[in-house]
C-alpha cells in the first residue's frame, strides 16, 4: 500500500514522505499477547466502522455493475469534463507548487528578514482554515467586487487559484527540512571547483531536493483532486467549464444517482492511489542511492 502522506494539519512539518505511520524496529517482545489481540481487534473494528466499510461500499457500488457500466458512468459528458478539469488543473497546481514552494522554502531557509517567523507560521494557514472560508476569502478578493478589479469568478483560473491556496504548504514543508539539513560544504566544494552559484544550484542542490519536491508535488496533487469547499464559491460550478470532480459527485448524490456518484468517486480514489504508489516507488528508488 502506498505511503499516504498528506500533511496532518496546521503547524506540522510533513513527516518525511518515506515514513508511513507504520512501525519502526520490532519491539523486543515478539509473541502476540492477549492485550495485543484485543487492541488490534478494537482498532480494526473502529477503522472498519468509520473508514473501511464505507469506502469499500463506494468502490463496490461504483464498480458493482461491471467495468463497462463503470466506464460509462465515468465518461458521462459532465463527469468526464469535471474529471478532466480536476486532473489537469491539479497537474498545473502541482507544477506551480513545485516552483513556488521551492522558492518559498529557499527564502525561509537561506534568507533572513524581519517578520520571517511570522511568514513561516503563515504558511500553515491553509491547513488550519476551513475550505469554505478559503473559498470565501478568495472570492472576496478575486470576485465581482474585487478591490483589485480582478474578477476571476466563474473562470478556470479562479479554480486554479483556489487549489493553489489549499495546496500551498505541501511542497514548502517537504522541501524546507531537506534544505535545512543540506550539507553546505558541498556547495563550497563546488565553488572551489569553479562552479557558479547558479550551476551549483542546478547540479548540486537541486538533485538533492528533487525527492522532497516530488513528494510534496504528489501530496499537493492528491489534495487538489479531492478539493471541494474552496472551489465551490469562486467557480460557480459551471458544468463543462468550472465544475470540479468533487462538485460533480455532490450533484449526483443530490440527484440520487448514487451509482454514478460512486463510480466517479472510485475514479478519483484510483487516481490518488496510483499517484501515491508511484511516489512511493520513486522514493524507494531514490533511497537506494543513498
Amino acid at each position: 500500500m502506498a505511503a499516504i502522506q498528506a500533511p496532518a494539519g496546521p503547524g506540522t512539518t510533513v513527516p518525511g514522505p518515506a515514513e508511513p505511520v507504520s512501525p519502526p524496529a520490532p519491539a523486543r517482545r515478539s509473541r502476540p499477547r492477549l492485550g495485543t489481540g484485543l487492541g488490534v481487534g478494537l482498532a480494526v473494528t473502529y477503522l472498519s466502522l468509520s473508514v473501511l466499510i464505507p469506502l469499500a461500499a463506494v468502490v463496490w457500488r461504483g464498480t458493482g455493475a461491471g467495468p463497462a457500466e463503470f466506464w460509462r458512468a465515468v465518461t458521462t459528458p459532465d463527469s468526464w469534463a469535471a474529471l478532466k478539469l480536476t486532473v489537469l488543473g491539479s497537474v498545473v497546481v502541482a507544477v506551480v507548487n513545485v516552483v513556488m514552494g521551492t522558492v518559498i522554502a529557499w527564502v525561509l531557509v537561506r534568507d533572513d528578514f524581519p517578520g520571517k517567523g511570522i511568514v513561516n507560521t503563515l504558511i500553515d494557514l491553509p491547513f488550519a482554515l476551513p475550505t469554505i472560508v478559503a473559498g470565501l476569502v478568495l472570492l472576496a478578493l478575486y470576485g465581482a467586487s474585487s478591490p483589485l478589479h480582478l474578477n476571476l469568478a466563474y473562470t478556470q483560473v479562479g479554480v486554479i487559484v483556489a487549489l493553489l491556496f489549499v495546496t500551498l504548504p505541501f511542497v514548502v514543508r517537504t522541501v524546507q527540512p531537506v534544505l535545512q539539513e543540506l550539507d553546505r560544504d558541498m556547495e563550497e566544494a563546488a565553488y572551489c571547483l569553479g562552479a557558479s552559484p547558479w550551476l551549483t544550484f542546478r547540479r548540486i542542490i537541486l538533485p538533492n531536493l528533487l525527492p522532497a519536491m516530488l513528494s510534496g508535488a504528489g501530496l499537493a496533487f492528491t489534495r487538489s483532486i479531492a478539493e471541494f469547499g474552496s472551489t465551490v464559491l469562486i467557480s460557480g460550478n459551471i458544468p463543462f467549464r468550472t465544475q470540479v470532480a468533487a462538485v460533480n459527485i455532490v450533484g449526483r448524490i443530490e440527484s440520487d444517482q448514487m451509482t454514478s456518484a460512486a463510480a466517479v468517486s472510485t475514479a478519483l480514489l484510483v487516481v490518488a492511489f496510483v499517484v501515491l504508489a508511484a511516489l512511493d516507488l520513486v522514493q524507494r528508488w531514490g533511497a537506494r542511492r543513498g
Partner: protein
Amino acid sequence: MARYPLRAVALLYLLFLLVLPVGLIAWRTFEHGLGPFVTALRSPSAVHAFEVTLSVAVWAVVANTVFGVGAAILLVRHEFPGKRILGALVDLPLAVSPVVVGLALILIYGRFAPVGGWLERHGVQIIFSLPGMVLATVFVSLPLVVRAVVPVLEELGQEQEQAAHTLGASRWQTFRRITIPGIKSALGYGVVLCLARALGEYGALAVVSGRLVGQTQTLTLFVEERFQNFDQPAAFAAATALALIAVLTLLLTRFLRPKD
C-alpha cells in the same frame, strides 16, 4: 544569490494568495467596528451552528484521541501480523475527498442502506443527523492524533516503561504515570490538530448533514448558506470567526509541536 528578487517573488506570491484575501475579509467584517460582527454571531442560527459544530467536534476528537493513543501504542510497542497494513489504513483518510467520505457514509448508514436501514428501524438516524456528522468528522480527522503520537512514542523508547514494570507498576499504572506524561505534549499537539480539522470540516458535512438550518448546520455550513442567501455580513462574520480559530490553532501548535 539573487537574494532580493527571490525574496520579492516569494513574498508577493504569499501576499496575493494568502495575506490579502484573509486580510480583506477581516477588514470587511470589522469595517464598521466590532458591533456588526458580534450581532451577526449572536443570531439564533449562528449560535446554534456554533453549538452543533462544537458538539460534533468534541465527540469526534474524543473518539479519535482514544483511538489515536491506542493505535499508536499498538503500532509502536506491539508486534502482530499485518502491522504495516494497519499503519497504512490509518493514513487512508488523507487521500480521500471529503465528498467521497460523505457518499461512503450514506451508502452504509443511509436510510435505504443495509446498516442504516436496520438502525433506522430501531430509532437511530445516522445520515442527516448528528451521529452521521460525527462519523464523517471522525473519518476525516482520524489519522491526526496517531501520527502526532507515533514518532514521540518511538523516540521515548520502552526502557522507562520496563523500569516501571520492574519496580512493580501494573500495566495501567505504567501507562498512566509513565507513558502518558511522556507523550503529553505530542498528544496535545495531535488533539489540537484534530480539533482544528473537526471544527473546519465542510465537504463531508455538506453531503451528510442535510444542511438543516438550526439542526444540522455547522458554522462552516452556516458560512456557505448565509452567503448563498446574500447575507454577506453574517457569512463574513462567521468566516472571520473561523479564521480567528484557525490562527489560534496555528499559534497553539507552534508551542506544542514536538521538537525534532
